[in-house]
């Protein structure tokens, strides 16, 4: 009989191998799914793992979509390490897009002349503040009223989406936009400069790489980061040491809200150049998967973000080239997280073969 046996210590190697194992299992299930759908499994898989990486254009698109995913995920990593269950990064992302995009729209409609090096940072900073403000509602209700942050942060996603809808269907609608729910296109001075010519990849990608380093230092080389993690791992020990759980709660939510807001503002002032009801294609939710697959580690989140970005692009390619439904991406994302959690069992347990005990003859 196969049995699970507790390891004396959690396995470090397994903790790194588990995401790879989960990915391998996802690929196997994906291949089976392609066969069931009557498609060539190799061609199907190549849409996800080969095609996005073959051209410069493909690579820049992978980097472009990885940027918001990684930004949201490193913020969530801080939250989850502090045992604060913010699952509303999607809403904080939308508020970042609304506030950042709002500033860009104001500059556009009022014809404010300002150089790009001055205006773009203002737009991004506004996005950060928007995301932080939205997350602070969750923090406040948790802090003052003990309201469950999972449910509050999630409910706020729906509220944020309706707020965005109201703005782009109502007061912010472009009068010359043929009644489409969208704002004016932002003026060039508010937009993010391109990083690679002839592509949509903007400097936000470079900023994201820098922030991955900053978050690594914050989590693993700073006193505040250490306090935060002790509070998550051992609340009693943290209390005994005098680390404030309230500070940890506010820090975690403001940091993750700010990162999600930054990602939202980048999306508005980057590839989109305007606000529409579909600013986010679920980046805030996908980032939760990125965060877990990346082992709640900023560098891990970077790799996981690139992987999940390939999933997103693979889904689009599968739709346009093989006629597969784009929703397939969501299936693979969910499967990956599910399988990852199952594989994580192997960090704390090992599988042992126990010969069935011989029964005495009755």
């Amino acid at each position, binding site marked *: 009989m196969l049995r*699970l046996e507790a390891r004396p210590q959690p396995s470090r190697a397994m903790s790194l191998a588990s995401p790879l194992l989960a990915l391998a299992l996802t690929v196997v299930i994906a291949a089976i799914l392609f066969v069931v759908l009557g498609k060539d499994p190799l061609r199907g898989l190549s849409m996800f793992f080969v095609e996005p990486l073959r051209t410069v254009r493909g690579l820049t698109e992978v980097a472009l979509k990885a940027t918001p995913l990684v930004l949201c995920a490193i913020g969530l990593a801080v939250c989850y390490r502090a045992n604060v*269950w913010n*699952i509303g990064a999607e809403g904080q992302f939308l508020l970042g897009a609304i506030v950042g995009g709002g500033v860009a729209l104001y500059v556009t409609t009022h014809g404010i002349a300002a150089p790009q090096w001055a205006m773009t940072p203002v737009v991004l900073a506004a996005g950060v503040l928007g995301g932080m403000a939205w997350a602070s509602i969750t923090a406040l*209700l948790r802090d003052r*009223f*003990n*309201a*469950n942050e*999972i*449910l*509050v942060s*999630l*409910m*706020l996603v*729906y*509220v944020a989406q*309706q*707020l965005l*809808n*109201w703005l782009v*269907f*109502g007061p912010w609608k472009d009068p010359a936009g043929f009644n489409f729910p969208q704002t004016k296109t932002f003026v060039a001075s508010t937009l993010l400069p391109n990083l690679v010519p002839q592509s949509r990849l903007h400097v936000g990608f470079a900023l994201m790489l820098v922030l991955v380093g900053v978050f690594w230092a914050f989590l693993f080389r700073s006193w505040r980061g250490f306090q935060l993690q002790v509070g998550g791992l051992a609340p009693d020990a943290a209390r005994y040491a005098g680390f404030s759980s309230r500070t940890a709660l506010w820090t975690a939510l403001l940091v993750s809200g700010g990162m999600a807001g930054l990602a939202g503002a980048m999306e508005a002032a980057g590839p989109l150049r305007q606000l529409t009801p579909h600013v986010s294609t679920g980046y805030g*939710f996908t980032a*939760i*998967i990125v965060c*877990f697959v990346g082992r709640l580690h900023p560098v891990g989140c970077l790799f996981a973000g690139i992987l999940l970005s390939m999933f997103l692009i693979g889904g689009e390619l599968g739709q346009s080239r093989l006629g597969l*439904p784009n*929703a*397939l*991406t*969501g*299936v*693979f*994302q*969910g*499967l990956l*997280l*599910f399988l990852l*959690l*199952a594989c*994580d*069992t192997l960090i*704390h*347990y090992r599988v042992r073969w126990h010969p069935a005990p011989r029964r005495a003859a009755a």
Partner: protein
Amino acid sequence: MNEIALLIAATIAAGTPLVLAGLGLLINEKAGVLNLGAEGMMLVAAIAGFAAAFHSGNQWIAFGAGAAAGMILAAGFGVLVIWLNTNQYATGLALSLFGFGFSAFVGVEYVGKKLGEHVQYAVPFLADLPFLGPALFKQHPLAYVAMALAAALAWFLYRSRQGLVLRSIGESPDSAHSLGYGVRWIRLAAVVAGGALCGVAGAFLSVVYAPLWVEGLTAGRGWIALALTPFATWRPARVLLGAYLFGGVTMLQFSLQGAGVQIASQFLSMLPYLATIVVLALISRNPAWIRINMPASLGKPFHPSS
């Protein structure tokens, strides 16, 4: 007068899926398991139910398909959290994300499809009563099943021996284990039962309430159902009350619009979510109140130390 009767009827209809899902999650939580995958289970059940109704033309087959879909997903979740001791928050979240993706994937072919004729239901004789008839007695049969279920669950939890065992497992799995109860199997049974009810709720949404399929049809109702259990301080009758309260808030947006109130529809659509947040904040304000009522082992893994 007649409008009020119709508003009450609409409130009950909107509250029914919340009653079903809320009671299902109550069973889970009474056994000590928190399933954040409610939204995902409801979505997959909604498309399973819709597809079954579309091909069979029979609502009851659709509810069965929804229940089966909910049970399968709940069983998967249960094995992970009960035997492999994975984090209940993360696993439930994974189930919700998976359910969203999977239902959207399966549902692609069913977007824009229509189900057969909408049947009008009426309880004989009672439906002819003035006011009370249109308000209470013209509901889908499942609305009455949901009400009866709340009563049955209250009896089961507080008046039957099995209910006592279930609650003891939620309060103190170690004591229940030492008395010889199979904590893990009973928890799994509770999780699967909860999945079945969430499944019926999802199928009700897509087959009776909507009745159509769109991506993300449940629109957060699984999460609202999760908020119902602390709101109800884990009591079945109060789940019923809370569900109708939220159903009423959902209906309020339509009646306000109908009354010509000059508010953008988007703000009215926010109401159910804002109401959930406000109610959660009010109900959680007193930590002691929650602590007394919440099953003591909720969300905590159980390791049998035999």
